[in-house]
């Protein structure tokens, strides 16, 4: 029942804005409450910003199913050396200005990181309540 509804390449700063805006409208169309649309959009901003910062390019794929929305952010960057550490509160590699991966995780219901030296895939899910 999973259906792909969006696929956005992330290559430059403006793509962060485009991804946030388009995913927010999809979330609205699916029926998410405003506050959850904003949570999803904020998490997407953080994750796509990370792609630009660390991997320079990647893409975000959005799937929907009956239960909610799945956001997959993938890149072919250098990978996250220590995923557990990257999820610690306050962790930052580049003195980054965002909420960090932990912040993005808190905004979503499910959050999975797969990372190696060939790239990173972050799969985040938000339930439709």
């Amino acid at each position, binding site marked *: 029942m999973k259906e792909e509804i969006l696929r956005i390449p992330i290559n430059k*700063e*403006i793509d*962060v*804005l485009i991804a*946030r805006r388009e995913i*927010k409208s999809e979330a609205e169309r699916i029926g998410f409450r405003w*506050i959850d649309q*904003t*949570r999803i*959009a*904020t998490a997407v*901003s*953080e994750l796509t*910003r990370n792609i630009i910062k660390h991997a320079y390019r990647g893409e975000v794929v959005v799937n929907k199913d009956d239960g909610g929305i799945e956001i997959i952010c993938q890149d072919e960057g250098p990978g996250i050396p220590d995923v557990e550490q990257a999820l610690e*509160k*306050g962790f*930052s590699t580049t003195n*980054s*200005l*965002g*909420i*960090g991966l*932990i*912040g993005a995780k*808190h*905004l979503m219901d499910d959050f999975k990181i797969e990372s190696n030296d060939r790239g990173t895939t972050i799969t985040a899910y938000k339930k439709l309540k």
Partner: protein
Amino acid sequence: MEEKSLSDLSIHISEGCLVVPIQGEIDDERMSKIQCQILKGVEDSKVKGVVIDLSGVRIIEPYHAGIIDKTAKMISLLGAKTVLTGIKPGVAIALTDSNFDFKEIYETAGTFEEGVKKLQPLVRVEEKSEEAEEEVEKNEVIEEVDTGEETGDGEDGNVEDEEDFLAEQDEKDID
């Protein structure tokens, strides 16, 4: 990009505070322009209080919230205090779950008027001590970016000035 998203910034001084109303959607370029204008505004006007009013912003990228946080720290280094006002839920989401230590560097208030009020003790003390040498000009508009309402004549000059200013700031590499 929608025209609306490029809303304009009009920094002015009100009751001894530098007031910075931010509206609409923020991107990197706009954010860095805003940061430059605030810092230049504090330097030029020598205010002791800055009110950054976010009531016109519905949603903000955490990265840009981080730049606002950093700007407040810079303002603090310049000797002024920042109050963030008009924070909407969508902005609050980006400001939480973060490392922003806003309690130390800046305060928040519901409305811009409350923000100005909060800064009054600071501004007043400063006014007294500097009474002779400097008068705090009220409601003086020190910087106004093209609001789209102006006639063509003024616009070119403004844009050039701004570009010069930004180029200057780039050289200084304030970030």
